[in-house]
């Protein structure tokens, strides 16, 4: 059975999440510890800013022990006491729920920002790490691989990833509507606070120049050193605005520092070249009347947040369609896995029938039929092969159909094993043969027999 044990932004504060997160160095260690646990057949460790999850395949009839094993390893990895410090924040999902959760996470339906694209890359990284550690061998690998295809379907068939949902991305989007490509523009930061830094980092990608103008030149220089920018003295503000295309303002000033008259002079010196202000300061740094000047655009934090809210609303409107896709895919995957449950019985039935009939044939060919020429012997072999196929076709397809319809095929399979005196064949032996993990973590949805693509 597939299991998920973990915590996320919905259940745990950042202090707990950061204790359990695993970077590039810690990941192989925790993965190898989990993979070494006898209770787990397969395992993957997903670690992002907002969630830490162990996705595992438990051995048959060992779900509770597998859950305990995962909790123990998580507590050990985070250096937390299992009961007091970890248990209140952990959730676990089993079987159908676990598959659904894995698909939802990959499709970004469980993300803090609905539809954000980074999570799929993070799941792929986790998948690659688990594959490299040899911790994904069959059904679980197939499940995660399927999750990539589900995520792709959700993004293609719904607008879950459309629109802009952060202030920085809205500012970049607006700048693109004004300037087109942002490859050759100059960005000026007014203030050296964290908010300016976040917005400027997005806006300054590919910028010709990034200048930071702050009342404290030292702070401007310190920030400039971290982001390939240059600091400029506060008294050069007007001069700097003549050169800039985008101005990001976020100082703590209580009164506007960029006034209507100042921008009027600047625009004259710029010969009317377009100027875009992103004012994320509260109180505002740019006099709102500046927006009325020709070729000048001022967007404050409310304007940007309005667009963020619109983007999020649009994404939430797509949630129902996305959930429907996930539900369809979960049903298909579960149908496939249930088919696998009866596979050992089917194989045992075929093996036994084959062995009995061909054993009898060999005895006959060595006795009463030993005069038969080689051609006739081969014809008899073919006849028996065909008879085996025809004989077993109906029970095989009915058993598989019952399983994929979600009926309890296990009982039917055990009746067949009893009636035909079949020996148990280890499930994973056949499962591995029947459900190869194909294609790697490319999310292309290529997969093995039985699963729709």
């Amino acid at each position: 059975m597939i299991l998920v044990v973990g915590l996320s932004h919905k259940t745990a504060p950042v202090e707990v999440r950061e204790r359990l997160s695993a970077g590039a160095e810690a990941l192989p260690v925790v993965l190898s510890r989990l993979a070494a646990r006898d209770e787990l057949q397969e395992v993957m460790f997903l670690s992002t800013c907002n969630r830490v999850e162990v996705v595992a395949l438990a051995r048959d009839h060992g779900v509770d022990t597998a859950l305990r094993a995962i909790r123990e390893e998580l507590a050990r990895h985070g250096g937390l006491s299992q009961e007091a410090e970890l248990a209140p924040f952990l959730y676990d999902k089993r079987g159908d729920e676990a598959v659904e959760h894995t698909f939802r996470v990959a499709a970004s339906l469980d993300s803090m920002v609905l539809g954000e694209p980074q999570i799929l890359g993070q799941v792929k990284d986790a998948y690659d790490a688990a594959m490299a550690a040899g911790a994904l061998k069959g059904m679980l690998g197939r499940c995660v691989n399927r999750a990539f295809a589900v995520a792709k379907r959700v993004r293609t068939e719904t607008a879950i990833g459309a629109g802009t949902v952060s202030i920085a991305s809205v500012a970049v989007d607006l700048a693109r509507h004004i300037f087109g490509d942002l490859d050759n523009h100059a960005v000026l930061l007014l203030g050296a606070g964290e908010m300016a830094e976040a917005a400027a980092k997005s806006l300054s990608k590919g910028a010709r120049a990034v200048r930071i103008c702050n009342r404290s030149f030292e702070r401007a220089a310190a920030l400039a050193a971290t982001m390939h920018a240059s600091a400029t003295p506060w008294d050069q503000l007007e001069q700097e605005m003549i050169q800039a295309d985008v101005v990001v303002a976020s100082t703590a000033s209580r009164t506007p520092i960029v006034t209507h008259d100042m921008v009027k002079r600047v625009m004259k010196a710029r010969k009317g070249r377009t100027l875009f202000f992103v004012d994320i300061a509260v109180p505002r740094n740019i006099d709102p009347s500046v927006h009325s000047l020709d070729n000048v655009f001022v967007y404050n934090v409310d304007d940007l947040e309005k667009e963020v809210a619109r983007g999020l609303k649009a994404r939430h409107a797509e949630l129902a369609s996305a959930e429907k896709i996930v539900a369809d895919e979960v049903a298909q995957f579960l149908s496939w896995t249930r088919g696998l449950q009866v596979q050992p019985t089917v194989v045992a039935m075929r093996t036994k029938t084959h062995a009995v009939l061909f054993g009898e044939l060999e005895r006959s060919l060595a006795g009463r039929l030993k005069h038969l020429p080689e051609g006739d012997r081969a014809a008899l072999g073919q006849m028996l092969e065909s008879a085996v196929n025809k004989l077993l076709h109906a029970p095989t397809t009915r058993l598989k159909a019952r399983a994929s319809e979600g009926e309890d095929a296990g009982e039917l399979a055990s009746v067949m094993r009893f009636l035909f005196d079949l020996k148990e064949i280890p499930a994973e032996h056949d499962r591995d043969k029947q459900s190869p993990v194909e294609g790697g973590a490319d999310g292309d949805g290529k997969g093995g027999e039985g699963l729709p693509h």
Partner: protein
Amino acid sequence: MSPDLADLLFAATAAVYLGASVLFVLFLLGRAEGAAAWAPRLVALGVPLHAAQIVVSSLVLHVCPVQGIHFAMSVASLLAAAVYVVARMRFRIDVVGAVVAPLALTFLLASRLVGAGMSNVRGFRSAVLPFHVAANLLGVALFTLAFAAAVAYLVQERRLKQKRFEGVMQRLPPLDALDRAEHRFIVAGFPLLTIGILTGTLWAKEVEAGGAAEMARAAFGYVSWALFGMVLLLRAAAGWRGRRAAYGTIAGFGFAVLVLLLYLARDAAAGGTVATEVSPQASRQPDGLTIRGGP
């Protein structure tokens, strides 16, 4: 040359321009995902068809393609479409096709359906006239594109000023790209318009034209030239770009259109009644100069 081929080319060109126009409308309304990609391609397909239609029709009619004003406007719209197809490779101005495609369709249909009597104009065989006509046609083509870019600029700028993100704003090109494209179309068109104005003045002197309509036409031509000149001059000297330049461009184009309308009025008066026949055979005249119905 077979008139059937001319008809076929005419129908094919009209269908392609109509398809492009519909797709541009759907694109602007946000109704069709693939419209943005296919509409400009249809305009690109329309250009060679339109060119072939003009060549074949002129051979069928035994007439110079720029001899009648309707036919000449069809040539101008072909040039506008051709310049658009080339320009969109450099600028991100696909949406300008939303003006170019319907305009090309209208001028194409007008060349065929409207009474296009080509008067045997005095002095038509003047040496300067071919320069006058060619410069004006290409100039009109470029100013059409500048006009389309200016309109798109004003729509986009208005939405940015009103902070309305949704709808058409998402589908229009960046503001600066529109402003740059508009400026370059005017820069390219202005010398041609200047040649058109100069040769027109020379020709008017040569044929001693002096009627009220001709005076008005000349006056509108001068105003159009002055407006485009001011747009260029004020942009360079005083930084008048963006909205002001767009208004100047639209005004300049408006006066250029008035000149064309006066030509149409003159030819309608000279040609007489509106043709009801659309077949080239019906339009063909033995002297090759006086045409009713047009190609």
